[in-house]
């Protein structure tokens, strides 16, 4: 049996890589933001995997609090970037 | 509290098999999300994943003995509606 910690941290690293590569490759705003969110999700997954301490014991609360903060900040940043992008489009149309 | 003593090995195995089959069902649904072709087809797949997610969370709550997952399932059920409404009410503005 592979340890679930190893498995999920590999998934986190994979998500991070996929997201980062796509963030750099895309030049349109929305695909880029989606990719950046995927990349961020990978980082969150790594944090939570490190916090996970097996089936019996209670996981570490500190990374959980950090990731909770991260999720809220990520959604705010996404909203801000979308607004910036919309403004930019409006300026280009003029 | 979940009646932990009742969680016999055979029951655990049965629940885990159910969990895996449920995931398979979600996977089949997600193929439709990939194929489309219409927006509606994609979103009906999301609806299936939402309901399937609720079912997975209910089973996980029993298996992991985490009561809080019922709250998560409740929240997921509530938010699935908001998601659908967001999709169907925001369509491309036809000129």
């Amino acid at each position, binding site marked *: 049996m592979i340890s679930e910690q190893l498995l999920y941290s590999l998934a986190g690293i994979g998500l991070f890589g996929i997201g980062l590569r796509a963030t750099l490759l895309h030049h349109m705003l929305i695909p880029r933001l989606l990719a950046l969110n995927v990349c961020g999700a990978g980082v969150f997954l790594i944090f939570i995997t490190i916090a996970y301490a097996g089936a019996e014991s209670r996981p570490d609360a500190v990374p959980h609090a950090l990731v909770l903060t991260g999720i809220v900040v990520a959604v705010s940043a996404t909203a801000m970037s979308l607004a910036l992008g919309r403004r930019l489009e409006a300026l280009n149309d003029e | 509290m979940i009646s932990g003593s009742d969680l016999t090995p055979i029951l655990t195995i049965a629940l885990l098999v*159910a969990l895996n089959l449920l995931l398979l069902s*979600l996977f*089949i649904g997600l193929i439709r999300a990939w194929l489309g072709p219409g927006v509606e087809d994609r979103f009906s797949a999301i609806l299936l994943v939402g309901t399937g997610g609720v079912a997975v969370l209910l089973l996980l709550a029993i298996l992991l003995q985490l009561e809080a997952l019922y709250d998560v399932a409740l929240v997921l059920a509530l938010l699935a509606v908001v998601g659908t409404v967001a999709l169907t009410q925001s369509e491309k503005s*036809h000129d």
Partner: protein
Amino acid sequence: MTNILAVLAIFSGLFFFLSGSIGLLRLPDIFTRLHALAKADNIGLAFIALGVIMLESDILNNIKIVIIWLLVMAASAISSHLVARHALREHRSDD
């Protein structure tokens, strides 16, 4: 005894989930697909919720599960309506 009944209920639910997702994949258009989806949403989740209720001894949690199930039922009806209406409207604008 309760365990056997619970597992039986969960597996009947799974049957509806799997047939719902296969229907979502195989049926020809959005309206028939929504019809398949409703099976998973309503009956599938109902059976799984029933099974989980049998395994869960805490009465408050059981009430929560019933609320979740009622929510998903209502949500599924309204989502299907919205998605189908959206599909109809889009289709009309193509003509």
